[in-house]
């Protein structure tokens, strides 16, 4: 694909915690509408990489360029803090593994979902509420729960509120860290189905971190396999999973390392 189609371009991305290198020399491109999976066992550096991409962590080296809505490709760490924070709550979304990290637990579901609208200046209560109800419905939560606190919701529901809270600003790029982690198997399946539908319906680009190969098989067109902080293999999901080249990927696929 040509250069001007790239949505996110990552080169030489490296992050160290002190002397410990958590991810090293990661290169990849993400194209609009594409879902990229990042897999690998626990400790491989997946979350560190994701948080560097989402500018939650400052990388030790490397670049992350993003094509803003205005069409320009910009180095995200060269943006001002104000621009970066605006990006994070408008064009981007970040779904945490633990919904408690991504929700305001003392604020109603409606308030959680409406926050991004208020952050960009929406001052009409009725419109905020209508939008909140709409996006909660999109994640299969009924309007009768609009004023309930997330603490009264099940884990799967909390995760759906977190997703709605991100989608309300119509982001172009969604970062997700183990979105189905910590949920019961049947709940996981339903959430995955929902996510797959939303991504397709909204034409979202996404990067999904998971240790669960089932998740990427359903969601991701392309795959990065990480081990010890390095990308050992990347390619189309079906190709990588059905015909793994790297010995580590072969182990992973043969489920010896499945956690």
């Amino acid at each position, binding site marked *: 694909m040509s250069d001007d189609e790239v949505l996110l371009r990552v080169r030489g991305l490296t992050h160290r915690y002190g002397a410990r290198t958590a991810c090293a020399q990661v290169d990849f491109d993400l194209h609009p509408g594409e879902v990229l999976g990042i897999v690998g066992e626990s400790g491989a550096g997946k979350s560190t990489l994701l948080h560097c991409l989402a500018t939650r962590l400052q990388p030790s080296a490397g670049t992350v360029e993003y094509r803003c809505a205005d069409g320009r490709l910009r180095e995200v760490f060269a943006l001002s803090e104000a621009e970066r*924070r605006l990006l994070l709550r408008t064009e981007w979304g970040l779904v945490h593994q633990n919904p408690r990290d991504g929700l305001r637990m003392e604020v109603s579901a409606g308030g959680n979902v409406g926050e991004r609208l*208020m952050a960009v200046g929406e001052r*009409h209560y009725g419109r905020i509420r209508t939008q909140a109800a709409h996006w909660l419905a999109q994640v299969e939560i009924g309007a009768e729960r609009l004023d309930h606190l997330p603490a009264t919701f099940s884990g799967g529901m909390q995760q759906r509120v977190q997703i709605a809270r991100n989608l309300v600003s119509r982001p172009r790029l969604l970062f997700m860290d183990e979105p189905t982690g910590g949920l019961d198997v049947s709940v996981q399946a339903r959430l995955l189905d929902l996510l797959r539908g939303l991504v397709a319906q909204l034409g979202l680009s996404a990067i999904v971190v998971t240790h669960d190969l089932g998740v990427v098989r359903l969601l991701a067109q392309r795959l990065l396999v990480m081990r010890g902080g390095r990308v050992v293999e990347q390619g189309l999901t079906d190709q990588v999973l059905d015909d793994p080249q790297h010995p580590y990927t072969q182990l992973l696929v043969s489920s010896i390392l499945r956690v």
Partner: protein
Amino acid sequence: MHEAGYNFAYLDEQTKRAIRRGLLKAVAIPGHQVPFASREMPLPYGWGTGGIQLTAALLGREDVLKVIDQGADDTTNAVSIRRFFARTAGVATTTRVVEATLIQTRHRIPEAPLAEGQIVVFQVPIPEPLRWMEASERETRRMHALKEYGLMHVSLYEDVARHGRIAKTYDYPVMVAGRYLMSPSPIPKFDNPKLDRSPALQLFGAGRERRLYAVPPYTEVNSLDFDDHPFTVERWSQPCALCGATDSYLDEIITDDAGTRMLVCSDTDHCGARRAERPAEECTP
């Protein structure tokens, strides 16, 4: 003359200068919280030690001081602070707004209009309006720096969702000069409109939290709201039972053992002055 053994107005001159420097910065950046090295005062926190330090740093020998607490000049808190400055600074005190050059207050802005040249010092317990929504001070400071105030509207949203209206009745958040979100201190929202373009200099001191901030004269101060839930002030169906005022903030008081209730002005000096101006036969309800 003030009592021997103290510096004028209790604080030493160096401390006062440091506070005045902080106040100058606060005036230069309306609504922005400025840290200051709050001192131990011979009164407990919660008694307005922030306000007292600001007053101490500002008082000159020619000043005339008025101190109110919940609108009254004669409550324990107001009397103690007035006595403190009468003793340590020997300044004249008054209960009349027109006579005062400096008014220290807790929980009210006087009903009588303020004038150019006057200073109002507010006692502030919690200076950070975002505190209830965001516990991290690092984060709230960043929000102020970047003018990211959506979170305050989330709190108003929660109010409307729960109560059908914005339920905050005091310490109602305001935007100062279109830039900084500010806590007006726990005054009733009834007083918020008085903050807007006031001819007086309005200063705010939080002792325990070591913060001061300012609204210079004629600064625009707006109360936050929604387009479809606009800011409104309290209204009462009856006038003040003592002076007949229909435009002042009323408190409910119990007048006898049977629990008889009466609505009267919370600003006692204003109420008294109105009664004194009127013919005797109109005085009693």
